[in-house]
């Protein structure tokens, strides 16, 4: 982490037995890893698990004291492969990523890992990016757990349970020689709560000991005939061991009365919402006491058939609360009961939606429908459930829909990617629309207003790869976009190497902002900052040349809109063969400002000469067409109604948050927009020479201006 410090959070990792940890769910999990005696942690950053990586990256002293190895993996595949350290050796290790996007990338290594099995506890912290606030495709990680036979932990979303599940998850992994996934949803990662700490533990076996005493067991390698052995072992040994462990430790929880006509089986992660729905229906209180029996699956896979059968056998009907498609658990339960000829009705996706997040509103409806079908007597005691529909159907509220604007995320103030897409829009004005393959990263905001650029995204680092088919003679070339994060993750081989090898004729634009910016500004191989623990400053240009690209251009100041446009035009029209690669580099402004702003403030206070730039709009020159905004979308460039009676439309205005990146002026210049933009340069603590020069110029100019004005009509109050 280059520009943001997690020093305060690192302090929380040092808490000892009896201390109370207060903070976010994902940080509680991080602390729990250290309490579990992990020997190594790795992962790939991404919402919602970025903070695990960020804090450990800043926690060198804690980690080295404990003897824990930490690394930022090149991709989720790397992270998953890292767990192979636990195959032969009794080493506990954990890796993390955002899922299902990351799990897709990791799948190859996961299959191999799960086949051979592990000796030391191997845990994957899965940031399940599903539902509101998600930035990826809506899928369940559950499928991976099932197909590779990796145990899936889905704990109740409170800190003590999360921590307990991390600790017991390692034991489960070791008891069953199987890797485990700890699935945490977005809100759970960000939930604030407390738990009572234990002391951190040094790993019992060390990486160094493993290296110095290597072990080799050919039966753990995924090659026939061992692979057939693994399959048998999975079914006959590891699965029963896991079931026995989960049963004996009571990892799944029974709540409420021992008996009842109906019951609810819920995944741990959905417990709070389930309970709240019961509370609204008058069947539970705010402290967890429920009148409906609950079976809470903190372990989503494997299912413990005995426990399920015992829970369901004497009930008329049972509701399964399982978010997202398909309904794996519901189907399994049907099979389990059918095999035993148990007639209990199973309800689930018939009363709850197949897709979408299970919000409390959705849950109230579902539970209500379930009870009215199977236990009508339970309904009707409670107060009416919250229902805003009478408010929402009022015409005054309905009128809001036409007025409240959508507020999609966009480029930050001063973002260096903005001028790239402004230039691209200008190029499209000239050469017409093109097929543009987008990629994953901040640059994907280009698909939203005001740029509306980009047709598809096929995965991280796969922008140019997804333009592969468009390699035929044509009047227009394809354009593809790749971020620096995606480039190092997967892009160098899958996109660039592929395009070079297949002599792809398209244009590839690599957006280099010195960080993995969208995930929080982590360092990557081409970061320009010096990082004592990582080898940075590896050139993207050299890397693409290294895989054989020949037409490579770099622009080292993306704010040069005219230059950017010229380069794009050249790339789109040159006769050169093979991929045309443009590397557009400028530092992520969010991170740059984190570093510069305090430094500048300090310098000004210390009396040093500092020149600060900021843009402005002359209100009497701006005509209120907002063409500049359609080529910018900068949050600091806004509109303002004017007091001029001759004007109807609001004019552009730049507020004090402007960082003076230059985009406004460059765009106005390149697109020949109106000349109302100006850059104001403020010299703080000017030098003696500055003052002398300024006074000289001002004297001459004032005299000239006086002469000029005298010859013209000026009415008092006209200039205000």
């Amino acid at each position, binding site marked *: 982490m280059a520009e943001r410090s997690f020093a305060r959070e690192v302090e929380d990792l040092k808490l000892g037995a009896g201390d109370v940890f207060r903070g976010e769910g994902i940080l509680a999990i991080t602390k729990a890893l250290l309490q579990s005696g992990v020997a190594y942690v790795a992962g790939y950053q991404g919402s919602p698990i970025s903070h695990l990586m960020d804090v450990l990256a800043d926690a060198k002293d804690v980690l080295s004291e404990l003897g824990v190895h930490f690394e930022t993996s090149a991709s989720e595949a790397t992270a998953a492969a890292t767990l192979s350290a636990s195959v032969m050796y009794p080493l506990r290790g954990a890796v993390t990523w955002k899922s299902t996007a990351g799990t897709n990338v990791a799948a190859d290594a996961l299959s191999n890992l799960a086949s051979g099995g592990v000796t030391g506890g191997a845990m994957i912290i899965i940031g399940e990016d599903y539902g509101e606030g998600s930035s990826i495709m809506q899928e369940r990680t559950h499928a991976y757990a099932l197909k590779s036979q990796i145990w899936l932990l889905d704990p109740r979303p409170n800190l003590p349970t999360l921590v307990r599940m991390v600790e017991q998850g390692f034991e489960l992994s070791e008891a069953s020689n199987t890797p485990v996934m700890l699935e945490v949803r977005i809100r759970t990662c960000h939930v604030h709560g407390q738990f009572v700490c234990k002391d951190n533990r040094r790993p019992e076996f060390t990486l160094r000991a493993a290296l110095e005493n290597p072990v080799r067991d050919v039966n753990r390698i995924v090659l026939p005939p061992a692979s057939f052995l693994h399959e048998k072992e999975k079914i006959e040994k590891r699965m029963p061991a896991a079931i026995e462990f989960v049963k004996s430790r009571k990892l799944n929880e029974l709540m409420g009365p021992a008996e009842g006509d109906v019951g609810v089986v819920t995944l741990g992660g959905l417990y709070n919402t389930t309970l709240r729905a019961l509370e609204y229906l008058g069947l539970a209180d705010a402290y967890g006491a429920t009148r409906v029996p609950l079976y809470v699956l903190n372990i989503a896979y494997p299912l413990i058939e005995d426990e399920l059968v015992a829970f369901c056998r004497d009930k008329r009907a049972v509701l399964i609360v399982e978010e997202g498609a398909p309904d794996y658990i519901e189907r399994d339960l049907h099979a389990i009961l059918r095999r035993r000829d148990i007639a209990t009705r199973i309800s689930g996706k018939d009363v709850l939606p197949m897709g979408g997040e299970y919000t409390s509103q959705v849950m109230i409806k579902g539970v209500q429908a379930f009870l009215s079908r199977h236990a009508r007597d339970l309904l009707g005691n409670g107060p009416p459930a919250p229902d805003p529909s009478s408010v929402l159907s009022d015409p005054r509220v309905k009128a809001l829909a036409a007025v409240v604007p959508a507020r999609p995320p966009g480029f930050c103030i001063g973002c260096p990617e903005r001028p790239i897409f402004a230039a691209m829009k200008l190029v499209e004005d000239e050469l017409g629309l093109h097929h543009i393959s987008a990629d994953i990263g901040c640059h994907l905001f280009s698909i939203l207003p005001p740029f509306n650029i980009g047709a598809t995204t096929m995965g991280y680092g796969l922008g140019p790869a997804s333009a592969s088919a468009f390699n035929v003679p044509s009047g227009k070339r394809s354009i593809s976009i790749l971020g620096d994060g995606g480039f190092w993750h997967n892009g160098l081989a899958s996109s660039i190497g592929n395009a070079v090898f297949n002599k792809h004729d398209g244009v590839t634009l690599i957006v280099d902002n010195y960080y993995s910016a969208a995930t929080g500004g982590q360092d990557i191989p081409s970061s320009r900052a010096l990082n004592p623990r990582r080898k940075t400053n590896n050139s993207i240009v050299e890397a693409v040349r290294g895989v054989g690209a020949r037409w490579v251009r770099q622009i080292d100041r993306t704010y040069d809109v005219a230059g950017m446009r010229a380069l794009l035009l050249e790339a789109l029209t040159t006769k050169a063969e093979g991929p045309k690669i443009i590397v557009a580099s400028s530092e992520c402004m969010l991170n740059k400002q984190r570093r510069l702003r305090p430094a500048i403030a300090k310098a000004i206070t210390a009396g040093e000469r500092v020149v600060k730039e900021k843009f402005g709009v002359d209100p009497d020159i701006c005509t209120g067409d907002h063409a500049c905004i359609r080529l910018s979308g900068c949050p600091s460039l806004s509109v303002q109604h004017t007091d001029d009676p001759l004007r109807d439309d609001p004019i552009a205005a730049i507020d004090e948050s402007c960082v003076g990146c230059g985009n406004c002026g460059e765009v106005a210049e390149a697109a020949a927009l109106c000349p109302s933009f*100006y850059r104001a340069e403020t010299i703080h603590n000017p030098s003696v020479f500055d003052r002398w020069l300024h006074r000289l110029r001002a004297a001459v100019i004032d005299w000239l201006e006086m002469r000029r004005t005298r010859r013209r009509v000026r009415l008092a109050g006209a200039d205000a």
Partner: protein
Amino acid sequence: MSEAGRISIAILAMGGQGGGVLADWIVLLAERQGWAAQSTSVPGVAQRTGATIYYIETAPLRGDLAPVLALMPTPGDVDCVIAAELMEAGRSVLRGLVTPDRTTLIASTHRSPAIVEKQAPGDGIGDPDVVVAATDFAARRVIAFDMERMAKSQGSVISAAMLGALAAADVLPFPREAFEATIRAGGTGGEPSLRAFAAAFAQAKAKPIEPPPGHPRKRFVAWPTASGHVELDRLGARIGQFPIEAQSMIAIGARKLADYLDAAYVGEYLDRLSALAERDRASGGVQRGFAFTVAAAKYLAGAMAYDDLPRVADLKLRSSRQARVRREVGASDDAIVTTTEYFHPRVDELCATLPKKLGLWIEARPRLIEWMRGIVDRGRRISPNTISGYLMLAFVAHWGLKRRGSLRHAREMAHIEAWLQSALAAFAVQYELGVAVLGCRRLIKGYSDTHARGVSKFDRVTSALPQLKARDDGAAWLDRLTRAALADEKGAALDGVLKTIATL
């Protein structure tokens, strides 16, 4: 509050507004009072500029028993919504989070327009009154004022002001001192945060509701009386002869043109207007508040003061502008402020500023134009604070004094003539239609491509006139066309309305 004594609070904020800081404060506050508290959020990629909801629940402990708290707000069961911007308050109502039986709505009334509002070529800003009507209806209680401005005036950020309003709202059963102690314990912000907290607390107690800051009032400055300048006084007397309803607009228009060129140009303006005012009077203008004359005064002034480079150069040089820029950047007295101006003059514009015959001669020679493009057509950055920059701009500004003979001037005047004729023709059919044709001139604004696009939209809008003249509601349709033309850049909405008119 729920029966269990649980209190739920939803914060709607945009990325970078400190919604997370506010949520942390509330959680810390509750925990310090011995309550259980939980907050969560789904920031995702919205950490940049998107809208985000933070959700907090807090409840007293029951012995050793901790409450089970939800991770998301339930519509209809929220005690307090804190919206960090006016439209976010509207969004909270739309999502059902604000209900009359439960919810105290704390909202900052300032606006931070979304990109879809800003990018319209006209006025795309959402109507704040719709939000006020909805929040007044939906909330049990409203505390609404400009917390952004208040926080800034105290050198702090909006989250501190919102915490002050929350303390004053008595949603949480904790004393004011506990809130302030929380800010101190939080460590960030310190004194400025406490000042913003106190100011918002006081305002929320004394005057909890202020209407959203409206548009600035239009500033009508009268023509100077008895200036001592013979010609100006003569013009003042002429303005005085117009219908009283139109005089203030005419004075503003006259001021603009005097500033744009010279007193004689104001005379030309008044000549044109008096002919129009006569027709207005003859067509029953008295009953209609001389709307035709007022519209003519407004749009004719804008049309005659067409945007060109000499005008820009003139405005950039003024000493009053230098002072305004200093104010805007907040420069201290000893700081030196200079500006750099971004120009991109093109051959077309250069040609237009030349004497009419010369301009036409060049325009007829494409190869010459191509050659000139290579020399002229590029971005130029000029600082009016350097002597050479000043002289260059002063030269261009001076050139403007001779614009009457230019090609551009001839074209603008011809366009104005045609426009006024068409307005008069429409006016003869129906009073309101004439006014609406004058209003179409609003579409023409800006420089180079923007100007060309405006003219083309003007032409497309007025192309419907023959059909509209035959209809009683023609004026309403023409207004609708004009508004549609300002809704998007390419004129997709305009095409839609034109198609509708064709089927009428």
